[in-house]
């Protein structure tokens, strides 16, 4: 479970050494919470960016949109 979490986070397993003393189930609780947090933060960020566009003056909105969504995907 530590290996999976380290892959998910992109960190070396030794950085998660504190989890070694815990059971597989307990490690799974942490791993699931980390995964949920990462997904939630990404989703929150998407929502926040779309909301932010509404507060930007029309004259600057195009530039701001290209800055915030360089791939053109504004949801």
């Amino acid at each position, binding site marked *: 479970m530590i290996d999976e979490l380290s892959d998910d986070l992109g*960190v070396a397993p030794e950085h998660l050494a504190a989890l070694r003393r*815990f059971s597989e189930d307990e490690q799974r609780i942490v791993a699931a919470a980390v995964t949920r*947090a990462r997904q939630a*933060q990404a989703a*929150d960020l998407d929502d926040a960016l779309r909301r932010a566009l509404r*507060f*930007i003056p029309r004259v600057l909105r195009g530039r701001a949109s290209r800055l915030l969504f*360089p791939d053109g995907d504004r949801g």
Partner: protein
Amino acid sequence: MADLAARAEVAKLARELALDADRLAFLQAADRHELAALRETISGALFAAQEPRLRRIAALGKLLPTPITARIAEAAFGPMLSGRIAGVLDVSTAVRLAAQLKPAFLAEVSKWIDPARTASIVRALPDPNVITVGRHLLEQGDYVTLGRFVSVVSTEVALGVVAHANDRQLLHVALCAEDQARMSQLVHELPDERIVGVVAAAAEAGAFDEALTLLVLLEPAERIRAGGLAASLDLDVRNGIVESAVRLSVWPEVLSLLAELSDDARRRLVNVPATLDPNVIAAAVRAAREHDLGAAMLPMLGSLDEQHLGALGAVPELADLIPGLAAETLRTTGLLSQERRDELVIRAVQHQGPLPDQPYVGEARPSEDGELLVSLPTVVGDQALEHVEEVRVVAQLPAVELDGHLPAPHRIEPPGGDDLPEDRPRRLDEWGGSGAHEDEPPAAAPVSEGEVLGQRTAPRHAEDVGDGNVEVGQQGVDHPADLGKQVRPARPGRLPDTRRVEAHEPCGGVEGLQKRHEHLNAAP
């Protein structure tokens, strides 16, 4: 102590993961430093996953007027995202932006800021603004966030926030401080009344564990000061602190603290109802032995009053600690005047057969003619020894006649009755021989006074003890101060008589004893 620190770390991780801390409560079993490293790893990884987009948002701040950016931050991004964006803002943009944000919103943002990433921004903010944010956090009881910034803000800002905190709040912030060295610097700036107030407030709330945790976390100078101030409080408070030490099993820290305090402060802290319980002293003794803190144990035992000294008699672990400790303690506390009925005190080797694998073979006798040879206990190692006999303390005698009276001669019955040069009762001062002649075999061994009197002398392996039953009166000295005289350099060779004994100390033999003895002498 560790529990409180670990709890704070788990709370921070839970916040990072948007979880109830109770879901991660099991993590409190881990070391606080490991938990901090885990939290930083997870936090860093989560931040890194969003960093490219966070940087694009930060660039928006250069495109838009600051008031609009501030409005977007409050209305669209919210505190969590704003806090993350702060991690990639340059200082000047961040300071301009912060000036446009409401203090209450900044306080919310601060909960999501990584202090390490934003330290330069926080330090560049106007002091009154940061203090205002601190006040908001105090009102919310968010001590974890306040504790994270203790190492980031200036002393003036920290004290500005502290000025708005009541004593209980200050206690919590101090406990949550991630940088205890920095916290100690801040405590240094606080007046005595404030520290007393913090401890008293903790006591009033029954938060003795928190008060004690704070005490032991402080740097030495402030720990001594705060400990001394705590000792000035009422008996109930002092007793609560000691009970907390028992509850939290922080004896190593507490013994070190007690050793550092003034005599008066130490006396006030150790002579409380809780220390009348032999189990409490026994726990302290065990901790001292486990952590090699015999030297720290001495001041504590030496500060006990008559009533508490009486309770020591029910602490067998005391004499089993380290040899030097018991002797020194007994000498300084006068415990030698107490009877130690029927205690098995030494194992004497009747025949001087070599003992392979023994780290040292010592011999003992009075250092000068006319002095008394006190009993030199032999601690037997794990292997059986040949020719080992029991010697028991005669029950009726005190170990030392404090008034200088020399105990009367006592009966010695070696097995078979022919092991001693003369088959007759001997006076104690005859036991050692004079050692007057240069060519006489080696005399006194390099034994510490602890080795002489202080070791717990009950054999660890009763099966190793021979059938012979030598009874001697519990040998005494004419004055406790004489105990310190029985130390002499080793000389090779063997004594022909029975006063040779085997000194085996489980932690390094005589050399270890001597080192410890030096250590003990160096103790305050």
